[in-house]
């Protein structure tokens, strides 16, 4: 994700969670969090359990979310310079006054920088003189990962209806809808290394038809949580479990066509490593004093487990999120 994509992501997250945006630019948001977002982002479980128990009016936090650090810093520096210029020209003083001004702010900056350094590695918060904690959201930053995690928590299970293309003219007309199981999966190919793939499946509960890239298809529709008028749903011929099995089979068929030389290589490494430690521990065991044997045997076993843990190739498929989607037509 680049700065622009992050900016867009944050904007949509803040909207979806009902946060109040106090001020924004293409490089930042100054935002007062909604209770939902505050719960997910500020890590204040004690405070929220207090609110929940006492029914007190919650006071949510405000954050300064910087999505483009460089741009934001330039903006603020330019603004500060402007303000200063105004100051000195307003004061009517000559160059001397300006120099004195910059000297004073120089020390202030140094003091701030010192403070920032001492706290920076905890939060980067006290660095700014406004009281709103500043968070730099770059890809991989903790705060952005929290946003990711929060959207995953708040967007796991759905039940949605496609909005009809056009209002039907006749009040007694009824459009047929059928239910789909949609599931977005992450497939992990792991040994001592790892890669991942994203797969999205939709399985019609009416016909059992399975289509790939289902998520992309959903994005083309307008979806609503409410059942639209003049719509009837087809009878489900497949249970969720059956539909899930169909999705899994589709995935499995696909995965079977892949190249597994990486797994074979990992197995080979695994066996070599096992052989190496075998070569080391076997003679050790044989020559050891009787009383020391159990200890060595235990060590041996532990190393074997460690090596399997480290190298054993495995492929796992798990869901990112899923839902029931009612789409027009009989799929």
């Amino acid at each position, binding site marked *: 994700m680049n700065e622009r994509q992050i900016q867009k992501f944050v904007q949509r997250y803040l909207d979806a969670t009902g946060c109040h945006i106090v001020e924004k630019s293409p490089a930042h948001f100054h935002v007062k969090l909604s209770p939902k977002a505050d719960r997910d982002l500020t890590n204040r479980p004690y405070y929220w359990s207090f609110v929940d128990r006492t029914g007190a009016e919650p006071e949510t936090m405000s954050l300064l979310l910087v999505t483009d650090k460089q741009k934001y810093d330039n903006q603020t520096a330019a603004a500060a310079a402007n303000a200063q210029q105004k100051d000195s020209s307003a004061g009517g003083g000559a160059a001397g006054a300006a120099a004195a001004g910059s000297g004073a702010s120089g020390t202030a900056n140094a003091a701030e920088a010192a403070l920032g350094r001492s706290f920076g590695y905890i939060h980067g918060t006290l660095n700014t003189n406004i009281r709103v904690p500043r968070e730099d959201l770059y890809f991989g930053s903790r705060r952005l990962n929290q946003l*990711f995690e929060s959207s995953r928590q708040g967007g796991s*299970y759905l039940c949605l209806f496609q909005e009809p293309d056009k209002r039907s003219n006749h009040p007694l007309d009824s459009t047929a809808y059928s239910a789909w199981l949609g599931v977005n999966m992450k497939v992990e190919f792991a040994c001592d*290394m790892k890669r991942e793939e994203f797969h999205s499946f939709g399985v019609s509960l009416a016909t059992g038809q399975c289509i790939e890239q289902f998520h992309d298809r959903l994005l083309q529709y307008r979806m609503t*949580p409410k059942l639209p008028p003049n719509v009837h749903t087809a009878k489900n011929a497949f249970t969720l*479990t059956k539909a899930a099995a169909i999705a899994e089979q589709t995935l499995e068929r696909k995965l*079977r066509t892949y190249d597994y030389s990486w797994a*074979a290589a990992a197995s080979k490494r695994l066996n070599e490593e096992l052989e190496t430690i075998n070569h080391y521990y076997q003679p050790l065991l044989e020559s050891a004093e009787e009383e020391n044997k159990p200890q060595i045997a235990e060590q041996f076993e532990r190393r074997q487990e460690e090596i399997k843990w480290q190298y054993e190739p495995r*492929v796992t498929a798990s869901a990112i*999120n899923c839902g*029931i989607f009612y789409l027009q037509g009989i799929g």
Partner: protein
Amino acid sequence: MQPTNDPVKEAPAVKRKLHPSVDLQFDRTWLHNLQDRVDRNGPWDDWTMYQLAVEAEQSKLIGSFDDLQCLRSLPSFEPMTHQISTARKVLHEMSGRAILADEVGLGKTIEAGLVLKEYMVRGLVRKALILVPASLVLQWVRELNGKFGISAVAQKKEHSWANDVVVASMDTAKRDPHRDRLLAQDYDMLIIDEAHKLKNKKTTNYQFVNQLRKKYCLLLTATPVQNDLDELYNLITLLKPGQLGGQNEFAANFVVDKRMPKNEEQLHEALSSVMIRNRRSDGDIHFTKRIVKNIPLNLSTEEQALYDAVTKFVRERAGESDGDWSSLLSLVTLQREVCSSRDAVFVTLVNMFKKTAEDSPLRAKIWELVEVIRSITSNTKAEKAMELVREMNDKVIIFTEYRATQEYLLNYFRANNMVAVPYRGGMNRGKKDWMMDLFRGRAQVLIATEAGGEGINLQFCSNMINFDLPWNPMRVEQRIGRVHRLGQTSDVRIYNLCTIGTIEEHIVSLLHEKINLFELVIGELDHILERFEKNESLEQRLARLMLETGGNGDLLRKQIDDLGNSLSRIRDEVEFEEDEMSAINSIMNAVGQTIEVRP
């Protein structure tokens, strides 16, 4: 032992053979939860959040086995090329078990951080334990958080262990009750800094690390071999047992003598699959010269009177006491303090006075000394220091052992219109950095009581005054190391202020002439002291000599000379062995590359 990414144990999962060497496992938790919500008709989540979740996952997706994903999430710094290539090698060729043996200053911490971060980004490491010497714990925490955005915490309380990434000192970790807790845990990754402390199989450190359950493991050390090849064998066996065969096999295949390897080529090959050693290119280890100057000073009459009075006091107390070492040591400290400043003695005397019983006759004697202090109006050393500072007209750092002396000097310099800033161990991080900034900027003088710890890198300053000298040579070396380091462009001038006819005179001659401390290669002192200080540190030995010889100046001189001679003998031995080590070193140096470092 569960791989990190396995679903929760209770979660329903299906396993099927996908290929002869790999199973496919489906996690079905989601289906159960979905069914549950269907049955209860909700609650249902938000459509936008659902889309955001997919976008987030897609952006985090690890597309290939062998690129470095972590590089795109390190906004605040750029690793050097050799650090990146080292990380790659550890990840892709060594499967995450390696000895990082770069020479000092090439960034082993950064390399380890890159490897750790990469595994974390890929979801292969969640739990990580980092064991380092106590003095480096906070530095590691800072680096991991600041440079890598890894939420590492320093182990402080028992519950700290519950965090995902914990930095702790080896000494804490191996002790009860921590030990059992750590041994019961599976660590996805273990990192050990200063791993040469694991070279001996019989130590508790070694056995403890051997028992820890770990998947990936990095051992960091700049000196994988200090004395003989067995150390190397032990270190590698800890990491990967059998890599060099059994102990006997190793001895038969690779060892002629404890410092003389054979079958270099095979040994090199075996080493290069577990060890990476980057070295500075020789042309670049360009240290500037050290110019050491002792400044002998005669104490003023009043100061000499105080010194004599304190010496007499110490001798009497030593005679009376029945060998209570701790109180005797503080007596010796008194004598050292007189050589520094009256303020330093005063503080110690006041404390001593407070600790003495009210009816003790000692109180009167202590008070007499305080009276002698009163008559002192100037400080010979401070005047000389001032003169030196004015003469050099350049940045200078003054080291003293005593807080009180530091305070005195600050006042003295201020009174003489010389800008000086303090630096001491007790300051918090922010204040330390601030003081450094001030020194770099407008202050000509930095007065420091502490030389240890990172963060005081003073390459921009090339003058140093030892206002007084620590008795622990390592601390002297640390002081020098702050100034005389990579990036220093000028020759370094070191001035030792030394009062004639006092204990200080002996110490300066011992450190300067016998150990040749001021001209030793970095790291050498470590070896010398390790051999010398079998039972007792040099510092303690000196204190004991002082007390035992009583007031007999000649006897003391002779004893210290003996001490000095045995130290210089050890120095010769160590230097000789360094030459002998060249065969081992050349093998180790072949493991890795030479790095041009531009300071």
